[in-house]
């Protein structure tokens, strides 16, 4: 809010002096991401990395950099981070036997700190048996149905959110590192097509807000680059954790577009493409946003 007032005043002053071009720069410079540093328990996180040479973004920023200090603070200390309730639940589920095979995740994967390290950072990942990339949620449910003979969890259930938060935490601080070549290329390109397509009655694309206008206010919201390095993310608006696909769905409904199916091929392709736009950012799971 303070930023807006300052920047619009600066714009007016500059405009009055006949410096329209300068005004545009002044607005961007003042309204961009803030300069705060993200560190938890002494560990520093990369919230800003150079964009890929042939990529669309000169600099890649975590959504954390666009939140106000009160929201940012909730992520600075795990005791204040509401996402950790789910992390604890996830840890319990990890060693809970379920399904006809009489197994828990731990039976096969052992210590998650070892076996699940780096997994979140590589998702979605090519799966040879499925013949397509799978998200973390898909992978977990495959293990439940095939390896445990247990019922799959619903995408947005407390169990699934808890498990993705717990597994994601094992990659916290590691750089996003998804593969986009080989058989992933077609999925990456499909995701890109969706990202730039204008949809809905408001006729907007993801890029319109998160590439062309990040750093600016859109009414009460400070637009970020729409990165997914912090998911599942605790949102004060939701009062709980939410998945990547839930966020995509919300953004589509806001522009009055019919969302794609949660867990479907389109959102998986979009997830892969959005992840690739954030290569190098630290995983922040479970992040806090407003």
């Amino acid at each position, binding site marked *: 809010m303070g930023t807006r007032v300052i920047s619009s005043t600066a714009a007016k002053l500059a405009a009055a002096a006949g410096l329209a071009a300068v005004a545009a720069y002044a607005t961007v410079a003042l309204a961009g991401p803030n300069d705060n540093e993200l560190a938890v328990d002494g560990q520093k996180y990369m919230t800003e990395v150079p964009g890929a040479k042939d990529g669309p973004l000169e600099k890649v920023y975590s959504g954390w950099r666009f939140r106000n200090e009160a929201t940012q603070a909730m992520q600075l200390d795990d005791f204040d981070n509401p996402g950790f309730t789910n992390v604890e639940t996830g840890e319990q589920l990890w060693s809970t036997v379920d399904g006809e095979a009489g197994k828990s995740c731990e039976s096969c994967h052992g210590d998650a700190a070892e076996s699940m390290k780096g997994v979140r950072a590589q998702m979605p990942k090519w799966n040879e048996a499925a013949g397509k990339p799978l998200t973390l949620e898909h992978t977990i449910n495959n293990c439940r149905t095939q390896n445990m003979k247990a019922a799959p969890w619903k995408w947005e259930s407390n169990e699934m959110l808890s498990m993705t938060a717990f597994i994601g935490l094992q990659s916290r601080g590691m750089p996003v590192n998804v593969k986009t070549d080989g058989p992933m290329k077609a999925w990456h390109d499909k995701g890109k097509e969706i990202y730039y397509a204008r949809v*809905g009655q408001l006729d907007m694309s993801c890029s319109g807000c998160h590439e062309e206008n990040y750093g600016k*206010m859109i*009414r009460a919201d400070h637009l970020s680059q729409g990165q997914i390095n912090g998911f599942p993310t605790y949102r004060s608006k939701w009062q709980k954790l939410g998945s990547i696909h839930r966020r995509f769905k919300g953004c589509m409904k806001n522009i009055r577009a019919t969302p794609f199916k949660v867990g479907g091929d389109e959102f998986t392709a979009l997830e892969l493409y959005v992840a690739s736009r954030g290569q190098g950012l630290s995983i922040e799971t479970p992040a806090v946003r407003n």
Partner: protein
Amino acid sequence: MERVLSAAAVCLLTMGLVSQGVTAGPVTPAEVKISDGEIKTSLTGSAGSAVKGREWFKNRKLGNCLACHVNSELKEEQFHGEVGPALDGVAERWNEAQLRAIVVNSKIIFGEETMMPAFYRDGGFTRPLKKFKGKTILSAEQIEDIVAYLRTLKE
């Protein structure tokens, strides 16, 4: 002579009915003609209300113009977006016919790539939510009200 007169009278009468028909229903999105960046006549046939226009302008479910525009005249509203230019003094930059065209279909005025939605278009969208299918964001009356309000934004 008598016959000619009465034919003319019939003709006048029908014209009267037709023009009454037009004022009864607003111009539809398909009928709107934008030429040289202007729509010269009111979509409803009458002038809008600036007081109502001010409401539609800030209403998040209607114009939600504040999502993208700073407007000092609405100081009491806490949040003003900055995706588009400030609308302070906009009536001095554009005349009424131009403002109407901008709100009706910004794409024709600023180009397909503009972020500003077209507020009086009812088709050509990809994957619109079912409840908005075939509908315009604002009604003809609401467009005229907003145009009347924009006309008051002088510096």
